[in-house]
């Protein structure tokens, strides 16, 4: 089974410095999630959270952040 190769152009792109963890925040939690005729969207299977739990520990009720941000509610400057 061939793994994906590195993109040949990547060396020239600034993404070399991007931390994988920042990228995964966006690619696994952000982005448009589509349903429909899709073969598979990882959003549907919660798979990554399971298999990579050791690497990307999520904060949940059993594992709360020690820091509760209590600043202004984020709706404060949402779409006006």
């Amino acid at each position, binding site marked *: 089974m061939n793994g994906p190769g*590195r993109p040949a*152009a990547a060396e020239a792109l600034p993404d070399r410095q*991007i931390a994988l963890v920042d990228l*995964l925040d966006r690619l696994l939690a*952000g982005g448009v999630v*589509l349903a429909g005729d899709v*073969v598979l969207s990882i959003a*549907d299977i919660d798979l990554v959270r399971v298999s990579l739990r050791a690497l990307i520990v999520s904060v949940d009720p059993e594992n709360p952040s020690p820091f509760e941000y209590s600043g202004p509610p984020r709706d404060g400057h949402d779409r006006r």
Partner: protein
Amino acid sequence: MTTSPSEPVTYAYAVARAHPDLARSLTGLVGVADAPVHMVAEGAGEEGGGDVVLVVSPVSAADFGEEGLRRHLEDLGWLEAVARAHHAVVEAVAARTPALPLRLATVYLDDGSARGMLRSAVRLFSERLDHLADQVEWGVKIYVEATAPAAEATPGSAPAGDLTPGRAYLSARRRQRNDREAAYRAAQEAAERVADAARAHATDRATHRPQQGVLAGDAGENVFNDAFLVPRGRSEAFRSEAAGAGHGLAGVRVEVTGPWAPYSFAVPQDDGRGTRGTDDTRSTTDTADADGGDDSGDSGDTVRGVAP
């Protein structure tokens, strides 16, 4: 859904506003699994914006079909290669035209079914692309630095000589705890400064989970990990104000990343586009409830809200 291993499937990176130079930007670009990148158009001239395209690659069904993905996603090296390739394509597109990044590993049976998806949600995409045009995402992370070992009972400092070992230990522990509490308060102050910068410059905000685990490294404890949507014209002002939010605060470090394509804002966060009723109050919960799945009917079903 079954796929024949010999037929390629369609990996989708982003929805984008059509642009005369976009095809040229994609020429020679290498996507996931070294695949070439091309556009799928929804069909021009239709009401609601016929100028929305999907950026895709043909990829092996063996690797990107359901089974292959399940297997490969266990492999961090594979995940990283795909994530970086996905990102490189999104960057190339977003450098040219407004783009909505898709969630990693969104795979269609073929270009035709990808086109069908695009068509069914083209109005939503078009509106969102308009909203995001000329805005970028910045990430801001706040860390509480690991406690300095100075809190150990050091011979040089303080009147340690006057204390029994037990008292010295307790005193050191207390000092350590006080330092830590002070650092958390300082982090709170930094977060408020970031919020000030956001009020001045940002139009939206998304909350990510604080980073933990091996990938997060040992850069201290991440206590704040948010993303902000900022008009390009305000970008530098926001960046520099956010980056300075830790100034003068001991034990706190602020990291700014970006500018990013608007990954964290690809989908409106709370308004649900009317597909999820009135329950706006759950906006602060995580992605788990994005799977509602009961919506039926209109095209809203195709695009589900993604809470941060």
